[in-house]
Structure formats: C-alpha cells, structure tokens
C-alpha cells in the first residue's frame, strides 16, 4: 500500500464509493484466526476515547492483501462495517456507536483476504470514557523551523468532527522588510467567557486580547521590562495575566539530530492588569531565569520554572553555547493574596536539578490536585529535546507520592507543551514520537487515580493529512466554545495602534533586591545566536 492519494486514483476512489453505496461490505462468514499484529496507522488501539470524539479513521498497512474489512462494534456486536484499507467511519454511525458504548469497551475486528482466504486479526479495543472532552482546541501550525517564519496560522479545530478553521494567519501584513510572527493563543478558563489572547511579533506587533467580539491590541513592553509578554497564564478570577518576559536566542547543532537549542539568555516574570493596563514585576533577577508562569485554579498560587545561572565565562553567549546542558530549571511557587494582589516569597515545589533534570511548562489540574510538567535533561524548550517526558506531581498533601513520569503517555521522543481539559480528565500534549521532528497532537485520558492512559493521535479525516503535512502542531489549548471574532475583525485590530502598558513597580509584598541593574553590563553577546524578537 502506498501512502499517497494520486489524482489518477480519484476515479478509482469514486468507483469504490459507488460500489460501497450500492452494497455495503458484509463480514466474511468463514475465516481463519491469526495472531498477526494489526499494522495500522495511526495505531490508536488500546487508547481511552472521549464519548464525543471525532471518528478515529486509520489506514491498514498490511501488505499482500486483496481485500480488507473492518468491524467496529460494541459488546453486543452492533456496529459499523467498513471495507478497504482506508478505514473511514461515517460520522453519524461513529457517534451513535460511541454513545452506546460510553463507559464500556469498543471492539475492532479486522479481516484481511490473503490468497483468497479471509484472515481474522486479534480483536482490538478502545475504552470509551464517561467524561466528554472539551469540544474545541486551538493550535498554531508551523514548520519545525528555526529563524524564518511564513504562512503561520492559528487554527481552531472541533474535536467532535473534522471542522478546522483559521483564526488568524500571518501573511497579510508581511512586507519585504519585516515579517509577522504569531504565537501562543491562550484562552482564559477554556474560553468559557469568550476571552483569549495571542501575540503578534515584529510587523504591527502587540498582544491581541479577545473578549467576545471585542478585540484590542496592547504593547506590553515597557522600558523597565526585558521584552513584551511571552508565555502567559490568565488569572482564573481576577483581570490579571502573568507573563514571562524573555531574551531568547537560537543556536544550532552541527551534528546532533536534536538540531537546535532555544536558550533564554535572561528572563523575568511580570503581572499584567488588563483593566489598569499596568505591568508589574513578579521576578526580576539577573541570576535567575524564570519562565512559564501558571496559576492554580483558585488563583492563590503562581507556579513557574526558574534556573539559577552562574556565569562561567564573561560572554554569556559563549558560556551558554558551551554549557547549555548545565542549565537546569526547577519549579517554584509564590502565594498570591487576592485582596492585596501581592505575591509572597518564592518557595521550591520540585527540585529537578537534584535528579539531574530540568522542568518546564508546569500546569495545575483543574481540581488543583496535580501539577503536570515536562521533564528533560536540560533547558526549558523541550520540544527539541528527545529526553522530554510528561511528569505528574501530586499537590494534595494527603498523597505522599513523589513526582512520577506518565508512563502510558510518554514515548522515546519528545513530549511537551501539555494542557488540561476543563473537567481535568483529558490531557492534550505535543509529541514527536512519529518521526522525532514533526509535532503531532496526542490526547490521553487522566483517571481519578492520577494515571494517564494510552493516548490517541488527534483524529484526522484522512491519514494522509498527517503523513504529508510538513508542519508541526504547536501550543495547543482546549476551548469550551469557538473563538468569536472573524479573521477580518482580528486583522483590523492588529492593524490598529497598540495601547501601551505602563510600568507600575513590583508586585511582591516585600520587594527583593533588584539585581536587574547588574544585567546589562554583565552579559554581552558575541552575535553567534539568532535572537527572537518579542
């Protein structure tokens, strides 16, 4: 079986469809049992599925077969029969079957005709969970590139079917001098109140805030902060957003297939008040690189990662280019007073350095019981690190369990950038398990005992969509409802002048020693890295 669909094969496909319409395939009455392992792509068998997920179509790759029939069915054998190697389920039939099997097992039998004899492969199964998944996700589609960026899109996908639409694309405002980068679409509370934000960099740069159909653009960069806002987290109840501000660069491996290191040469945390339009510092130290802030569901704690930087050379570029693998990020937290809106002192949460690892992207489960994060050998931009795995840390004091890897969800390749569904039962994460380079989205069920189940790949109408897409899925987030403004409304807001945020000092209850003044003379650059403009 060849993977691609030639346009010359379209007539054949049409004929097949006509045949299928005329007489739907029936199960072979006689067949031989085999112990052949099903060779299908993607192989989602064994995964736990949400009862409202789109059909998990797949392709049978087993060679030297003249016919193939797939029977997807419930315990009582009622189900769907699909003929051919491209197994595409009818959406209505699929949803009806999932409704019937909710909280139960869904079975899949594959019959292959080899030398005129039907062979039955061992029955495969899916578990159908009781809890539904949030119906929408957003993500950025991007080539796994380095410095250049073209044709970036922030997309919205309905998980209950295959509908996908572009929320915003970056080509409209590009000119020969300046491109436009877009990133990090982040909803507030799963877009429950139609609030979200994303960043536009360089041409017409600013952070775009969406509330219902209203769109505004703000420039979060002030003279007192390192950059505009980068990685964000909305406060669950107050009109506040915590951001990291980063001085990021890229340096390239000459031989290592991990290809690139994305390194922060400085980073702090800020708090943006969306009503007052002010920016305050949360962390501002030259010797600590803080990033990836995330609020607890009650809004009383801010978690984040931080690495202590000890200069070994005068030139920070030369230092980190050589010692990049010595930079280890730990997870810290600061308590937040909802009344005074001030942060308490920093406290350690997870010491990854102690086990020779480095943590990134901490995310608290909606029930506040678990902290999910990515752990790799070094650094914080783990999508390029094959050692990156998902780990879980119970936050509930009643549990004495230490942090553990999510064995069922992880692979030998990179797992990174994860997010929780609003009911806390589903984890959406990026993985490069298919080829170590192109990121695909995977969804894993997270049970009440704190275990992840075998994940399934984001369903696609045709397997070829993933096979031939030379782009990565990036920074995906769950949504309870679609993003409301049209592309035209977003473009209009991007084109408008940005409102400038003003700096309002420290957000700490007891401001610590400000070591920012030492930063600029201390760190110099030899220009080897390619900087990212925030």
């Amino acid at each position: 079986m060849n993977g691609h669909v030639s346009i010359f094969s379209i007539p054949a496909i049409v004929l097949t469809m006509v045949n299928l319409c005329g007489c739907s395939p029936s199960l072979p009455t006689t067949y031989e049992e085999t112990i052949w392992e099903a060779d299908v792509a993607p192989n989602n068998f064994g995964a736990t599925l949400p009862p409202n997920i789109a059909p998990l179509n797949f392709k049978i790759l087993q060679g030297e077969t003249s016919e193939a029939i797939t029977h997807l069915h419930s315990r009582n054998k009622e189900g769907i029969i699909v003929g051919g190697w491209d197994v595409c389920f009818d959406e209505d039939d699929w949803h009806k079957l999932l409704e019937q099997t909710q909280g139960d097992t869904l079975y899949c039998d594959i019959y292959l005709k080899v030398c005129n004899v039907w062979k039955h492969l061992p029955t495969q199964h899916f578990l159908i969970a009781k809890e539904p998944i949030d119906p929408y996700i957003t993500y950025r589609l991007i080539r796994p590139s380095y410095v250049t960026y073209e044709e970036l899109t922030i997309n919205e996908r309905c998980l209950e079917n295959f509908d996908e639409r572009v929320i915003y694309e970056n080509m409209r405002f590009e000119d020969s001098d300046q491109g436009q980068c877009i990133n990090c679409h982040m909803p507030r509370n799963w877009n429950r109140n139609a609030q979200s934000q994303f960043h536009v960099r360089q041409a017409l740069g600013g952070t775009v805030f969406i509330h219902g159909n209203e769109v505004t653009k703000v420039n979060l960069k002030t003279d007192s902060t390192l950059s505009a806002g980068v990685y964000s987290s909305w406060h669950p109840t107050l009109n506040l957003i915590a951001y990291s501000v980063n001085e990021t660069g890229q340096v390239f491996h000459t031989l290592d297939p991990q290809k690139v290191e994305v390194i922060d040469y400085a980073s702090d945390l800020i708090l943006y008040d969306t009503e007052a339009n002010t920016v305050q510092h949360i962390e501002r130290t030259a010797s600590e690189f803080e990033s990836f802030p995330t609020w607890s569901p009650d809004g009383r704690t801010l978690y984040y990662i931080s690495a202590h930087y000890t200069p070994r050379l005068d030139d920070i570029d030369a230092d980190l280019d050589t010692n990049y693998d010595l930079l280890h990020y730990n997870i810290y937290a600061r308590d937040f007073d909802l009344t005074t809106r001030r942060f308490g002192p920093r406290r350690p949460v997870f010491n990854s350095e102690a086990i020779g690892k480095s943590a990134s992207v901490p995310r608290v489960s909606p029930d506040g019981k678990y902290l999910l994060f990515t752990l790799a050998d070094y650094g914080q931009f783990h999508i390029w690190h094959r050692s990156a795995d998902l780990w879980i840390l119970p936050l509930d004091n009643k549990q004495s369990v230490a942090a553990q890897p999510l064995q069922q969800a992880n692979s030998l390749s990179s797992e990174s950038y994860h997010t929780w569904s609003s009911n806390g039962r589903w984890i959406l994460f990026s993985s490069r398990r298919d080829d170590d380079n192109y990121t695909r989205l995977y969804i894993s069920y997270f049970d009440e005992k704190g275990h992840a189940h075998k994940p399934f790949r984001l369903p696609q109408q045709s397997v070829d969509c993933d096979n031939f897409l030379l782009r990565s899925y990036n920074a995906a987030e769950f949504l309870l409802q679609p993003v409301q403004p049209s592309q035209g409304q977003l473009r209009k807001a991007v084109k408008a002048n940005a409102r400038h945020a003003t700096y309002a000092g420290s957000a700490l209850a007891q401001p610590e020693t400000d070591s920012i003044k030492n930063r600029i003379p201390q760190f110099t650059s030899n220009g080897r890295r390619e900087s990212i403009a925030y």
Partner: protein
Amino acid sequence: MKFRLPFTLVFVAFALILLLGPLQPYLRETGALTPFYLTGISLGEFVSHPYGLLLYVASGMQSCFAIPWLGATLFTASLIAVAYAQKWAFRLNDNWFGLCWVIPFWLLVNYTKMGYLIYTTKAVAPAFTPILQVLIGVLLLGCLRVGLSHWWMLSVKATSSRRVIAIVVSVLIFLSSAITAYSNSFRDVNFLNSLRMKHAAEAGEWEQILQIARDGEQEPTRIQVCLTRLALFKTGRMGDELFTYPEGSAQYNATQNQWLRLMVGPLLYYHYGKLGFAYRWAMEDMVEYGERPAYLRYLYSVAKLNGEDALAKRYERSLARTLFYKDIDKNKEQEISEISPLLNYTDQLDGDNGLVEFYLLHSFTLSEGGSREMVELSLMDGLITKNLTGFWPRFMALLPTWKGHIPAHYQEAALMMAQLQGNSPLSDFSVIDPTIQQRFQRLVETSARMGDNTANATALRPEYGNTYWYYYFFVEGLKTN
C-alpha cells in the same frame, strides 16, 4: 494560413534554441524550485485559495522543466496558444499575425530574465502562471466577442494595397520582439556555469565540475570556487591541483549577495558533513519559499545520513508525490560512504550567520583530529585561510598516508613554512620533489631581486600562479561568503 506557419515556426525555433541551448541548466533548476505534488490533497490545498486551480496547473506545468525538453516544449506550446488565442479573440487578419507575438515574447522574457531571482521569488510558478492568466483572459475576451459579434468592429480586413504594409509591420514587430526577448534573457555566464556545476555535483559528476572550471573564461564567483574545491576534494586531487584552478570573487549579476547560501548552501554543508546546517538552511528556505523539491532532497538526505529513518520516510513520501523527483536514492550509498568519514567530530552549538564558505573554511581550519579526510580538509583550509598554526601537526599526521606521493601544494607549503619559520619537524627534505625545491629556490631568488610585492604579483604569475606560494603571498582580498 500561409503567414501563420512561418511566424509560428520561427517562434518555435527561437524559443527552443534559447531554452534548450544556453538556458537549459536554468530550466532544470526551475523545475527543482517548483513545489508541485500530484495528489488530491495538494490540489485541495491549492483550490482553497483564490485562483488556486490556475496556480496548481501552472506549477504542474512548470515542474516539467525538470526534463528540459519537456518543459521547454510545454512552455513554447503555451506561448503559441497565447498568440493564436489573440488572433481568434480579436479576429485579426493573417497579415497582422505578427502583432500576436508581442505578448508571447514578453511572457517568454518575463521568465528568462529572472536569473538569480528564481531562488527568491515567492510566486509558485512564475514561468507559467502569467501565461495561463493571459491565455484565459484572452479566451474570455474572445468568448465575449463571439457573443457580441454583431457589433464587434475590431476585425481588421486589409485591402490588397495595404497588405504589404501590414506584413512588413507585422514582421518588424515580430523581429523586434524576438531581439528584445533575446537581449533581455539572463544569460550570465557565471550564473549558468554555476548551475551546471551544481547539477553535476548533485549527480556526483565531479570531473564535469572541474572541466567547467577549467573552461571558464571569466573570473569565477565564490559559488564556482567552492564547487571546484568540493570536486577536487571528492576526487582526491585537492592537494595537487587546488591552486591551479582560477580563483576569484566575481560579483553576482544580481542585487544582494546571498546567492551562495541560497544556491549551494545545503549542498556544501551536506557534502562537508555539517549536517545540522545543511538541514537548517534547507528547512529555512522551505519555510520561506515552499516545499520545493530542491529543499526536500537535502532534508531527506540529511535525515537518511542521521539515521532518522521515520523522518527520511516522511520526505521520501513527499518526493514520491512529485512528478520528477521520486528517484531520490540514486547514488545514495556512495554519497553516504563519502560523507560518513567527515562526521567523526564532536557536535557543537554554533551559528554561521549565512556565511557558508567562511564558516566551512574556519570550522575545518580550527578543528582538531578526526578522520584522515577531516585532517586533510583542516590542512587545506588552513592553507586557504593562510592560518598555518596547525600545518605541521596535520602534515606530519598525513605523511604516512600519502605513501610516497606528497601532494604538490602540501610540498610547496612545507618548503615555505620551513623557510619562514626555520625549525621544521621534517628532518629529511628528500621527501620533497627536487623539481619543487628548485622551483621554490628560484622563487626566493627572484623575489629577493625584485623587491616590491605588487610588482612581483604580475611578473611571477606566469611561472608561479599555480602554486600555493603565489596564493599565499599575492592573492588577497577575496570576498568569501
């Protein structure tokens, strides 16, 4: 009819001679720079954009330039269709048929004048898209005219007295259009030679590159110099012949100066074992200019060499959907066996700022150890950059591997180093060819006699222009990029 045929035949001859003559390598390169997949998914992606079907057809036709005669035939036929469509749409009399060729000539030169810009255009199919647009526009106009034929008055029926004038004007316009098209076509010798060398490198035909370099009559660009050096390295003749080939840094006949990276950046990095950088630039260019087979080939090759089989398979699948780039594994085994010895080094984080030649030269010059091939590259690149710090250790390490025949340039450098620094580790100079020793002695005496360096350069060139000594003392100011 009797006037249409001669015009058509002359145009066909003109177009095919131009396209399949000097511009043949340009056509081939255009094919490799055209993103086109023959699949329903790709068609669907195209048609989801305005004018997508037209762009899809145009890119499919343009990808046929991969087989120059096929692409040229399609291109010429499309231009002829434009001429005939005009005649039909405007109901032009045969006598005025020459007028119909102005636009085809414009469309022809619109493509042939692009030259280096074919690398940086973001148009999907710059050769065929305008042709199809004009063709469709003219045909639509024709349909409109047929519909409104009762009042359409543009038909020109020549009286017999004006017939001769019409024919003469027609022929003059045709000829002037042809001359304009020819003179505006980008036939820059260095550009076309660079393309020939690049295609030879891609086919592993290293001797052909050296032949083109030897035959070149103009000062070469850095692209040509780099490809010549690569061919000499591949053929094992670097140490004997490198300084016998023309050096130079001729300006590119185009604005900007990024052409080396765009044309041969991934190719050079790949063949010199800097796989991360080969992949990076192929990917950066794919981001900028689309899924061109020219980039997919290097993404595939690097993945293969890296042992990233699943990734290589992904690119192989993409290439398999193209019309003419399915056969990616031709010569792959030999290519891999040649490059593998250059991968014997410790990975490091680095950046090249797009300066491919500069990075490669300095990277090898400053490297330590590695395979025999790497040590020889370090030795030679040290000579090229005139950084002789590591000369003796590398020379002495390679000495046993030369098995009696020390390449001429290394002998020249050894003599020069001994003369400049005094204490040489080479205890016995009998390993140096007596002819080279005598030649060096003559050079020293002549230089001492003549004094001033600038005057020496011209005078010594005929006798010593093909030696490392001449390169070291007199070749300066080359703009590596």
